[in-house]
């Protein structure tokens, strides 16, 4: 059996959860954990032994990943985990609630199937950007071992033999939070309904779209790609809204867009460091055309995606977690309060989520071996589904995950792209 690379073991025995991660352990239940998944598809079948070796080589390069979740008297915290992480075969239904014990108490799991390597993360551990760095480094090491390649490491593929800096596992929310904070009041958003799938099933549909065509479309509307996709999602949701026969339904259609705060601050952390903005339309004012929606989304993004506004938002959360009354509240009460507040407020403010990791550029050597990438968000407690996208080479991979049987939302979105002469290649986990 391969031994774990012990180059960087000088890490604290325990760590506090970062500010964004505080909520996730409280929402853990028998059937729910906030999960997300990143995949990299190679051009050859994955070798289990090499993958295991690569994992043991890279795990210590990510000190914050070497912890297990523990329950304290007042807060959850992370305790150093001395066991080795394990790998397993991939499943048809991804992102099922992680059973920590099964994975040697790690808050992530590495899976493989055919040519694909997948890593599924519990959100308390890291966010999409941090997760991407981990899987890229893992795949980089895998390729290095298998093909004896020399890799030019960059900001997403780390050198596993270089010691991790303290900044990589710092909680940057506390570092950058200011005193003045502001949590804006928002109205509840519309949720489309459907027939719930049985227990463990999660439907995944990925659309592979040529980036060039999408860029042309966004140029036509003079907006960014995220703005265009968000607008198309809202436009599709608006169609569902008008075909929804329920008499009493919320009138706001909003898409929640996670924002990578590393783009605004000089942060190197691989722990959570993202915020979000909710953008949408109010159907009470009438039917919106796609152009109108794009205008609204574009203006809202310009207004909300500023360092000042984002800082005010996460500073409010930091302020809340520093509140003395909340801090001294025992865990068994706080857990239920946090869970309830997340259930009532978290998912109710948006109709769906669009998480965009952007265009990924691997070192040239790795690109030879990597065919596809993927990013998907797990089940949410309130919303019926979520959307995520990631770009690689000439394609954009848009993944819809949903816990309901009906795929009307996805159909409306992708057929609108077809109507705009943009080809879409579809794959799914349907058996």
């Amino acid at each position: 059996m391969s031994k774990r690379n012990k180059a960087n073991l000088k890490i604290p025995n325990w760590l506090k959860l970062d500010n964004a991660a505080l909520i996730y352990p409280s929402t853990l239940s028998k059937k729910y954990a906030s999960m997300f998944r990143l995949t990299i598809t190679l051009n050859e079948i994955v070798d289990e032994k090499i993958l295991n070796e690569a994992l043991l080589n890279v795990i210590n390069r990510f000190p914050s990943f070497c912890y297990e979740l523990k329950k304290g008297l007042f807060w959850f915290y992370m305790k150093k985990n001395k066991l080795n992480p394990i790998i397993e075969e991939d499943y048809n239904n991804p992102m099922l609630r992680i059973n920590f014990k099964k994975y040697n108490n790690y808050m992530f799991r590495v899976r493989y199937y055919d040519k694909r390597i997948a890593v599924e993360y519990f959100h308390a551990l890291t966010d999409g950007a941090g997760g991407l760095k981990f899987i890229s480094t893992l795949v980089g090491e895998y390729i290095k071992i298998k093909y004896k390649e020399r890799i030019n490491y960059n900001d997403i593929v780390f050198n596993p033999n270089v010691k991790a800096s303290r900044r990589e596992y710092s909680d940057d929310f506390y570092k950058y939070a200011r005193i003045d904070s502001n949590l804006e009041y928002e109205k509840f958003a519309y949720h489309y309904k459907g027939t719930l799938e049985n227990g463990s099933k999660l439907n995944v549909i990925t659309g592979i779209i040529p980036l060039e065509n999408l860029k042309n479309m966004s140029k036509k509307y003079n907006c960014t790609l995220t703005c265009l996709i968000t607008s198309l999602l809202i436009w599709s949701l608006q169609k569902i809204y008008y075909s929804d026969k329920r008499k009493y339904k919320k009138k706001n259609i909003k898409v929640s867009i996670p924002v990578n705060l590393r783009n605004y601050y000089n942060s190197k952390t691989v722990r959570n460091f993202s915020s979000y903005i909710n953008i949408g339309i109010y159907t009470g004012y009438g039917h919106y055309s796609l152009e109108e929606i794009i205008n609204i989304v574009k203006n809202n993004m310009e207004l909300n995606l500023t360092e000042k506004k984002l800082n005010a938002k996460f500073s409010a959360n930091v302020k809340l977690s520093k509140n003395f009354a909340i801090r001294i509240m025992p865990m068994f009460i706080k857990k239920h309060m946090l869970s309830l507040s997340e259930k009532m407020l978290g998912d109710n403010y948006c109709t769906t989520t669009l998480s965009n990791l952007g265009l990924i550029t691997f070192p040239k050597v790795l690109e030879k071996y990597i065919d596809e990438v993927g990013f998907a968000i797990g089940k949410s407690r309130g919303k019926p589904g979520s959307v995520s996208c990631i770009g690689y080479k000439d394609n954009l991979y848009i993944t819809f995950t949903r816990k309901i049987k009906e795929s009307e939302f996805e159909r409306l979105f992708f057929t609108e792209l077809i109507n705009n002469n943009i080809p879409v290649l579809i794959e799914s986990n349907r058996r």
Partner: protein
Amino acid sequence: MSFCVNCGVKLKESEKVCPLCNTKVINPNNLKGFDKPVYSLLVDEYNKINHKFVCGLITVILIAVSFITIFCNLIFTGSLSWSIYVLFSIIYLDSKLSFALFKNKYIPYIIELISTELLLFVIAYLNNGLHWYIYLICPIIFVVWAYILICILVLKSKKYNFLRRFAICFSFISLILIVIEGGIDLFKYNVINFNWSVYAVVPIIIISVIIYIISYNNKLLDEIKQRLFI
């Protein structure tokens, strides 16, 4: 490469049905069939609780408690007296595990009835109250049990709207009250003389009828929903 004839999207060679509109993929040019699925066929499952093991463990603990009780009783009094109550209470408690053990939902209800009757029989027998048990308690318990079973059946049936089902269950309470008062009267005076049950039955029947009528009035229901809408 196959295309969905309904929505126009390209489909990966592994897709047998369009995931967007459920249209079957038929490609006459693709004779080799479908590719390996993009996702594994293995299905991940939630952590399952071993009900049999948990129930067995609880039963073992309860048996141990009963033995300790009997042992203490024998040491202190030299005979089995108060420990019999504890023993049968433990059997009664253990019978509740049937709800976790049986897949057939009606078997636990039958076990529940038998265990309740058994516990009360033992109490009555030990206190020379068999007359009280046979003519009063046994029938009342049976009637209440039957009522609970009927309510479960009625509430489960999705044929009628919830208000109608609720009205039916609620109206049955009046029947229960009449039977209870009749039973008590027969036991005590050998003559049935309805008295207090009438005061309860009349409002119950009126409320049930009102709810039943309202359940047919969609306009009124809509008004109520509108007012209570959050």
